[in-house]
């Protein structure tokens, strides 16, 4: 298998080549990649793809991976229905 066809983001089905293209257009952080390719915007919210994508970014931009910024994690940690957010929703649900 060609290396560039390896899938990095399973939720949005993005390959190394897809991310490389975003890098070549100037993306330097995971959040740049995210907004350009949807990497990390799917069901897992970057929980599976973040490290792999960051390793590629570090490699391409020749900076140590620990120098790259983290992505911003937001609530909820796991998908939850809207009714859970609404007062009394637990009981009515």
């Amino acid at each position: 298998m060609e290396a560039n066809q390896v899938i990095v983001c399973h939720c949005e089905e993005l390959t190394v080549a897809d991310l490389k293209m975003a890098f070549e257009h100037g993306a330097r952080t995971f959040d740049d990649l995210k907004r350009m390719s949807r990497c990390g915007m799917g069901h897992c919210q970057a929980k599976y793809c973040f490290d792999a994508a960051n390793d590629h970014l570090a490699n391409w931009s020749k900076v140590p991976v620990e120098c790259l910024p983290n992505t911003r994690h937001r609530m909820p940690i796991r998908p939850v229905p809207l009714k859970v957010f609404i007062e009394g929703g637990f009981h009515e649900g």
Partner: protein
Amino acid sequence: MKVETYDAIVIGAGVVGLGITYELSKQQGLKTLTIDQGYPMSGTSGATQAWIWVHSKTPYKYGQLSLASANRYQELQEEIGDIEYIRSGGIAPIFSKQELYDAKALQLEMSKANIPVDLLSREEILKLEPNLSPNLLGATYSPIDGHVNPFKLIQRYHLQAKINGAHFSFYNGVRALEKTEVGYKVTTNRGVYEAEKVILSAGLWSKSIGEFLNIRIPTHTSRGQILVTEPTEPLIHHVIIGMRQLSNGIVLMGFSKEDVGYDRRTTMDVLQDTAEKSVNLVPKLKDVKIVRSFSGIRVMPNDGLPIFGEVSEQKNLYVAVTHSGMTLSAILGKSMAELVTTGESSFPMEAYSIERFKGREENQ
């Protein structure tokens, strides 16, 4: 330090700055540089529902400007490639008698600009959107409203401008802006640049950059928090004030406005309120799962209208700072390129001059 020279420098590469950059890049022989402290979409332009919204933009002249932009997006869709601009139609729900009176006034106001606004009864609106709550009294509807894919729009502006020869410098914050004999000098983290003309389109940060030249840009901040669902069945087919469903099935929902400075956190109280309002509007959403929340900070001119044009005391310095940058980037880009290259714009923009704030209270 070596100084690079350009004809024009655009400060800010959000949707407004990139719209301007793209239109300028069509001018043969004009050497431009666009600078941003981050990367396109890292600020306000990347945290949006991306409505191209016209029908409640009052006064009617502001509606006309929004309509001109919506029309320009149809051309851009051909010019720069698929930006997923779709005129889905837009709905503003009415829940109270007061909102019904306001809707009638809105209809009258927008008729002055020939912007179609229909006042629909409960039955009519439920026919159009069967998943809306039967508790609403009615709605205003306009076929002119729609949405765009903000990521595609910004990438297309950027890519096409680059192909046309525009220069870019990202992750490069502006540290000083000074007047020179021939124009302006922009000092950044990574270099010094000079140009005859400077266009300030840095959204939220325009205010502090303007201060380098003692220009007061009266804006404040307005945080919006958004909930994002998992892909779900088609529930709504139009932009409905507060929400839209993307082609991949995701629903975006947000109603909040908070002046909390540059704080981009999401907060539980606002997200709970957002969930409640969303379910009140579309009851079926109660069982749909949320996968994420996000927030963005809008820039809000103090009187709500765009700030656009040349600054009278600073020749060849132009500003383009506005709320609703997604809706307006197309017409602001076109108008700014015309203004910078010919001295006037084909769409009348005089009403949006920064000069209007002169003599107003300091806190205005």
